[in-house]
C-alpha cells in the first residue's frame, strides 16, 4: 500500500464510512432491455458492497463495446479507453498504484480479437486484477458482426451466411498460457453463481480471468436460449477449493467435481466449446506476479538528486 503517489493515504484518518449498493451506482445503465450486462453490473455492485470497497480506491477499466460502458455505470474511478486496449491501461494503473483495486471489463471482440495480444501477455504478467470477459459471442456496439467466439454457422452482418470458423475457446486459450493463475467461467443469468465467481476472482491475488456467458437479446438471442431454459444443459464444476453453491444443487444437477489445482484436468474440461461448464477451472496463487517481481525502493527527491549526481560523476569530464 505504500506508494509515492499516494503518501497522503497512509496518514489519513480512520475511515468509518459504510457503503450501500447505491453508493456504487453511477450513470443509469443504457444497455438494451434484457441485456445480460445489467445483471453483471448488479452483481458487481453487490460485490463491492459486500467487500466494502472504497469507491475512490476502485478503478474500472474497459475498452470499447457495449460491455465497455461498464465503468460509466459504476460510481468509482473509471477509464473507458480504446477498443482492445483495456489491459495495457489497467496494467499501467496497477503498476503505478498498487494500492488501487482494478477491475477490467471487456467484450469478446475487445478481448479475444483486437486485444488478443495483450490478453495473452497479461495472463503471463499475472498482475493482480479482476478481468471479466463479457461474452455475448458477437460485436454488439457496432451492430452485429462475427466475433471470435461466435459459434460456427451463426449468421451476422459480416458473415450473413453463417460464421465460417469454429468459435475460439477463451478458456483453453487462457489455460495454454504459461503463468495463468485463475480461470473461471460463469453465466450472468445465474446471479448466485455469478456473484460467487466474481468474489472468488476478487480474492485471488493475481490476474483473475472470468469468462461470463452473456445474453445479447438483440444479436445472439438464440445462443444461450437453451442453456437458460434447461438447467441440464449446464455442468457445474464443484469443489471445496472451487465454487459450490448448495442452493443451486437442486437446479443444476449436472455436477463435476474438479480440483482447481489440476491444470491438465482444467484444460480437458475446458475443451468442448458447446458444453456450458461453470466454475473455477484453475487457480494457483503461487504463480509469480509481475508487480511483485519489480517492487522498488522508494527514494526522496534529495536522495534521487544525490544518486543522479553520482551518475554524473561517472560521466564527468
Amino acid at each position: 500500500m505504500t506508494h509515492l503517489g499516494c503518501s497522503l493515504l497512509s496518514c489519513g484518518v480512520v475511515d468509518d464510512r459504510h457503503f450501500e449498493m447505491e453508493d456504487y451506482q453511477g450513470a443509469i445503465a443504457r444497455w438494451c432491455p434484457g441485456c445480460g450486462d445489467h445483471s453483471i453490473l448488479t452483481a458487481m455492485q453487490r460485490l463491492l458492497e459486500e467487500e466494502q470497497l472504497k469507491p475512490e480506491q476502485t478503478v474500472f477499466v474497459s475498452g470499447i463495446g457495449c460491455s465497455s460502458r461498464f465503468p460509466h455505470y459504476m460510481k468509482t474511478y473509471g477509464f473507458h479507453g480504446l477498443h482492445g486496449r483495456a489491459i495495457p491501461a489497467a496494467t499501467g494503473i496497477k503498476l503505478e498504484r498498487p494500492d488501487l483495486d482494478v477491475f477490467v471489463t471487456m467484450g469478446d471482440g475487445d478481448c479475444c480479437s483486437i486485444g488478443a495480444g495483450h490478453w495473452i501477455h497479461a495472463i503471463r504478467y499475472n498482475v493482480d486484477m479482476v478481468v471479466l470477459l463479457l461474452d455475448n459471442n458477437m460485436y454488439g456496439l457496432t451492430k452485429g458482426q462475427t466475433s471470435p467466439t461466435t459459434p460456427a454457422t451463426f449468421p451476422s452482418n459480416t458473415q450473413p451466411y453463417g460464421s465460417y470458423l469454429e468459435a475460439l475457446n477463451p478458456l483453453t486459450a487462457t489455460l495454454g498460457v504459461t503463468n495463468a493463475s485463475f480461470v473461471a467461467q460463469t453465466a450472468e443469468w445465474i446471479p448466485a453463481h455469478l456473484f460467487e465467481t466474481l468474489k472468488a476472482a476478487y480474492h485471488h491475488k493475481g490476474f483473475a480471468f472470468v469468462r461470463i456467458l452473456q445474453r445479447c437479446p438483440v444479436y445472439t438471442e438464440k445462443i444461450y436460449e437453451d442453456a437458460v431454459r434447461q438447467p441440464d444443459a449446464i455442468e457445474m464444476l464443484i469443489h471445496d477449493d472451487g465454487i459450490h453453491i448448495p442452493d443451486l444443487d437442486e437446479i443444476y444437477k449436472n455436477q463435476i467435481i474438479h480440483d482447481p489445482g489440476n491444470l491438465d484436468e482444467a484444460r480437458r474440461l475446458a475443451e468442448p466449446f458447446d458444453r456450458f461448464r461453470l466454475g473455477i477451472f484453475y487457480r494457483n496463487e503461487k504463480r509469480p506476479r509481475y508487480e511483485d517481481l519489480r517492487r522498488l525502493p522508494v527514494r526522496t527527491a534529495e536522495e534521487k538528486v544525490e544518486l543522479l549526481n553520482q551518475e554524473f560523476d561517472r560521466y564527468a569530464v
Partner: protein
Amino acid sequence: MATKTRASSEKKKGPGKGSKKKGPEIIRVPETTVEIVSDSGEGAQKCGQIFGAVCAKMGNGAWTVEIIPAEIQPPARSKAGGSGNRVRFGTEEITNWGDATNLVVAFNEQVLLGRIELGALAEDAIVLLDNKWATHADEDIQKEWQGGLKELAKHDYRIVEVPMEEECLKIVEDPRRGKNMFALGLLAWICDRDVDLIRAQIAHQFRRKGEEIYQRNVELMEAGYGWAEKNLDFRIEVPTIPSDVPKVVMNGNEAIGMGAIAAGMELCSMYPITPATSASHYLSEVYDKFGGVVHQAEDEIAAVGVAIGASYAGKVAYTITSGPGLSLKQEFLGLAVMLEVPLVVVDVQRGGPSTGLPTKVEQSDLLTACFGQHGDAPHVVLAPATMEECFHSMITARRIAEAFRTVVIVLTDANLATGVQPYPRPQLDARWQQAPVSLPPVDENVPPYDWDPQTGLSPQRYPGQPGGMYTATGLAHNAWSKVAYDPDSHQLGSQMRSRKIAVLQQTLKPPQVYGSDSGELLVVGWGSTKGAIEEAVDRAQAEGLSVSSCHLTFIQPLQPGLKEIFSRFDRVMTVEINYSDEPDDPYITDENRRRAQLAWVLRASTLVDVDCWSRVPGQPLRPGNILKAIRQRLEMGAKV
C-alpha cells in the same frame, strides 16, 4: 599536397625511412577528425568510444559518430561492412561531425575503401592501415590488397602501413580481440592523449569483464603507443583550453535517460527499437536505485497504453520509441489528448519510410509527430538539438505535459542518440522530482475537467481522491466527463484542448538569430543539425556571404516572432534531413514540389515562401555541403 609517408615494422622491412631521432613533425591544429574502422566484431567502436571520451575528459570539445555497417553480420573485408567510430575534437566546442576525416586507422583496406566511397576522408588524410593482408595465406586476399593499394594511390593520402596483427600477436593469440586496443594506443601517441585517463576509461568499458581482460587491454594499448612512438614521424596537437566549467560527456540517449530521472519520472514503458533502445538499456541498468522501472511491453501499443494508465493514476510516465513505434502509438496518443492525461513520448528518429534505415539518422517524423493522430488532437512537439538539450528537454517535457495535461513528443534522432558530446554538468534541482500526486478529497461540485474557460487548463484528478470519482472516456464528453454527443459539448471540448496549446505558445520566446539580424539568406533548422548549420553559416560569413541561421526548439506550437524574423531576410530556407524534391527536378513545379517537413509547417504558419534544402543520406549533414547549398541558393537570388 601532403607527402606520403610509409612507416613499417622495423623487424620486417628494416629501418624506416629517415632517422626518428630528430623528433616527429608536429601538426598543430585547432581541431581534427579521427576515425577508426574495422570489420564488425573487431572492436573499432569500443576503441573510438574510449578515444572520444578521453578527448572530452582532457578538456577538448568533441563530437563522436558511430560508423554502423548495413548488415547484422557483414562478411569480413567488405566495403559495406565497415564498423567503427569517428571522433571530431578540437580546442573549442565541437557541435557536429564535420566534413571529413583527417586521420584514420583501418584494420583492412576494404573497409577503408568503403569509407572513401562514402566520401568520408579528407583528400589529405593520414591513413594507418594494418598490412597483414600483404602476406596473407589466401592469394585472392593478397590480390585484393594490391588492388586496394593501387586504388589508394589515386588519392593524396599519407599512408602508413602498420603491422598491427603482427604486433598484437606478441601479446594475444587472437588479435581480432585486441587490435582495437593497439589502435587506441597508436592514436593516443599520435594525438598525445593522457594515458592514465585512457587506462581509467578502459577500466570503465570492461568493468564487468574482470582484471585479466583489463590488464591485457592496457598492455595492447601500451604496445600501440610504444610502436607509434618508435616508428611514426608525426604527431597531431590539438590544444585544450583549461576550463572551470565542470562537464559531463555522454550520448543523447543516455542524456534522455538521465533527463527522465532528473525530471522525476519513474516509469519508462517501451518496446525495443533501434535507435531508441539504448536509452532503455541505460535506464534498465540504473533505474532500480531511483525507484524507477523500465517496463518492456509486448508491443508499442501496450507500451504507450501502460504509460497512459500510469499517468492517469499518478505520475507522468513516458515511452521511448522510433518511427515505426510512433506510427503504432498514434491511436493511444489521440486518447491521451482526449483524456487530457499527461504523457511524454520520445521519438528517436531514424531513416524512413517503413523500416527504412533502422540505424541511421533522419528527421522525417516531424509531420507525423504533429499530425499523426486521427481527429483534431492538439499537443506539443519539441526537438532538442544537442546532448545537453536532450537532457533538459525531458524536464521541460514533463512540466509541460503536466501543466497543460497533454502529450509532449520529444523528437531526437540517431545522430543525437549515439553521438557523444561533452556539455556543462547540469545543476540538478530536487523540485523537478516532486510528485504531483496528492489525494485530497474533492468537492463534488467541481467537475473532473474544470476547464478555465479562457485558457482551457484544469487540474488533474487521481484515483484515490474521495468524492472525485469519474470515468475518463475517449468519447466526446462534457466537463463532467459524461459522454456528450451534442454539438456544443464537442465544440467546447475541442476548443479547450486547442486553447491550452495557444496559451503555451504565448509563454514561448522567439528563437535567436545566429549571426546578423538581417541579410540575404536565413537558414532555419531543427534538431541535431544545429551544429552543422551554424558551422556552415560561420564559414559562409567568413566568405563574406550575408547568411544567418535560426534553430527552432518548439515545432508545435511554433515559437513566436518567426514571420517578423523571416521578413528581415531576402530569402529563407530550411535545412533538414528528410526528403524534398529539388526545384529543378524533372516534372517538379512550384505547385507539386514535395518540400522538407519543417519548411512545410513554416510556410503554412508564416506564409513566407520558405525554401528548403534537404537530403536523406542516412548520415548527419556535413557543414561543407550545407555551405554549398547556401552558396547555390544565394546565387538564385531573393525569393521572399
